[in-house]
């Protein structure tokens, strides 16, 4: 096959893929909302995996507490776009009256009664910023640690954040503890709320299910995240991170300020997680500490490892596989077991765990570079690579 033929067929492949991605919600519609919902969640995981990829894949820092930034973004949305702040002020007034009254005055009577309801355009950058700062703060103590110790310490931080989220309902009710935060505002663009009425969004004449609206929004965010990741990778910063990953001593000798670069990697990765978290809060309308466990951190890590550490297309693949596959299997394997055995031997939760565990073990033993690693340039000299 001549070179131009080969390029043509791969171009058509890409075009077909893009079309498939764009029409997916309409194709899946007759089968119920569940499939699009699964896709929405998968898109969020893609963002998370890409964020972790900056830390683990580019800079080589094994962060096992990444879910903490997802939590921070989500709880930020929870505090700033729901009635929760009113509850916080109320509990403050009860236990610390002087401070409570002062804070109530600061926010004004409307917020004290109904909580804050910032628009998504404010919350997203805020989530990125706050999560980014948190990333730098949590990364700071780990800078001199060897790989596996760094992993354990970041794991500890992830757990600490979760414990705080779970317990910050007394004396002042900030996070509402194990019950989580309810009634988080859905995304609102102009006059159109993504929750719509009864789950249907109306845009003039058009009516699409709410999950579809979120699908396209998250798809857009994913594309932006992918572009950001790619640009970071192929920049002075990206090269510095990869240099640190490959050989920290040589990187230092070449004038790279390793400490600051590592902090920046933590911060950037964390900010992706924060944005995903805020979106998650708005999408679900409800968050609780249960969504932000170590299992989630490990799941995201599994996605990066399975797909191909450091290779953006691989990471996206890994995220799609590990986010969607368990759900797809649940919808197929459980009914299958019912018909075959009359009961469920392996339920969805077990299946999910099995997949994560196997992904990590098998990949490391058999194909450590991942399912779709960066192509090696060994023998053939390549012409200049195309870059978007």
């Amino acid at each position: 096959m001549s070179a131009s033929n080969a390029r043509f067929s791969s171009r058509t492949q890409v075009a077909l893929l893009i079309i498939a991605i764009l029409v997916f919600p309409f194709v899946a519609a007759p089968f119920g909302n569940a499939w699009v919902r699964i896709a929405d969640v998968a898109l969020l995981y893609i963002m998370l995996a890409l964020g972790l990829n900056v830390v683990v894949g580019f800079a080589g820092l094994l962060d096992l507490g990444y879910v903490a930034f997802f939590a921070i973004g989500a709880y930020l949305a929870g505090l700033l776009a729901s009635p929760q702040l009113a509850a916080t002020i109320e509990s403050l007034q009860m236990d610390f009256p002087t401070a409570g009254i002062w804070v109530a005055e600061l926010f004004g009577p409307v917020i004290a009664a109904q909580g804050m309801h910032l628009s998504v355009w404010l919350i997203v950058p805020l989530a990125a910023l706050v999560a980014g700062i948190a990333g730098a703060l949590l990364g700071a103590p780990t800078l001199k640690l060897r790989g596996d110790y760094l992993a354990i310490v970041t794991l500890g931080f992830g757990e600490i954040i979760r414990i705080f989220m779970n317990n910050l309902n007394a004396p002042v009710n900030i996070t509402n503890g194990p019950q989580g935060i309810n009634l988080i505002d859905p995304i609102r663009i102009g006059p159109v709320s993504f929750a719509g009425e009864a789950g249907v969004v109306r845009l003039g004449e058009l009516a699409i299910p709410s999950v579809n609206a979120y699908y396209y929004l998250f798809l857009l965010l994913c594309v932006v995240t992918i572009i950001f990741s790619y640009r970071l990778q192929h920049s002075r910063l990206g090269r510095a991170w990869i240099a640190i990953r490959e050989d920290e001593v040589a990187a230092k000798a070449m004038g790279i300020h390793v400490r600051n670069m590592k902090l920046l990697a933590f911060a950037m990765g964390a900010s992706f997680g924060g944005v995903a978290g805020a979106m998650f809060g708005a999408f679900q309308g409800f968050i609780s500490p249960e969504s932000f466990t170590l299992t989630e951190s490990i799941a995201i890590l599994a996605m990066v490892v399975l797909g191909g550490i450091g290779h953006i297309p691989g990471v996206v693949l890994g995220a799609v596989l590990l986010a969607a596959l368990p759900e797809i299997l649940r919808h197929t394997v459980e009914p299958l077991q019912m018909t075959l055995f009359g009961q469920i031997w392996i339920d969805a939760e077990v299946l999910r765990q099995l997949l994560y565990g196997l992904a990590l073990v098998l990949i490391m033993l058999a194909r450590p570079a991942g399912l779709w690693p960066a192509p090696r340039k060994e023998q053939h000299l390549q012409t200049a690579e195309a870059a978007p």
Partner: protein
Amino acid sequence: MDLLVQQLINGLVLGSMYALVALGYTMVYGVLNLINFAHGDVLMIGALTAWSILQLLQHWVPDWPGLIKLTIAIVGAIPVCVIVSLLIERIAYRRLRNAPRLAPLITAIGVSILLQTLAMMLWGRDPLPFPQVLPVEPLHVAGGLMTPTQLLLLLLAFASMVILTLVVERTRIGRAMRAVAENPRVAALMGVDANRVIMLTFAMGATLAAVAGVMWAANYASAQFAMGFVPGLKAFSAAVLGGIGNIYGAMLGGILLGLIESLGAGYIGDLTAGVLGSHYQDIFAFIVLILVLTLRPSGLMGERVADRS
């Protein structure tokens, strides 16, 4: 004052369990320079295996003395834990001995998940009530209360540590272990089979973890597939506190961490004027870990663990 004594006793009990598990981490680190992330789950397997054994014993021979039943449970759990631990070494670690250090860690995380999933499938998701085969009436000890289970735990922990010390210091095997920990290549030149020593190290660690797991479940009267994760992490913190790679450090670190946690949980309310309550107890171990690694990475008795070029 009574509260203090009670907290000290609790701390000692908790610390002994941490010490037993910490020893497993520290010994493996000593010979392989690697954190055995799945070690906490070995503890869990021990506890659940013992649960099953006790179910059988309770069913077939309910009249036997509790101590005998518990002993049988422990003796039965040990080989299972050893086998699991050896399998982990074989599958997850042996082939990756020369791989970049993150690879065995990632594999270990995967193994940990698989073990938990396996346990979930075999024993279900919910916590299982662990049979109380020893009398529950607490004994009066030194001004505080201690249940017979806790007393047994202390005795077993103490005995285990003494035996381990004797083995490491006085036997050929122990010398071989220390040699491999110092310098595997030279040890090999001296005729020491590194693989066998490593397997033995895992086996010993697993034995201690089995004892700790059974006693943990007996103490808290509960066993569940996820029970190993948090104690494992805390025991690891204890090992780092004492100085990873150093056996006496692990014992010291374990006891210390138990005391810190117990006293901390008891007094944190007073210390923070009610802002933080005792459910923040789990955080202490992590804070200790972070502080130790930041301020004194070699721990109380061990070697440097900070990044080496």
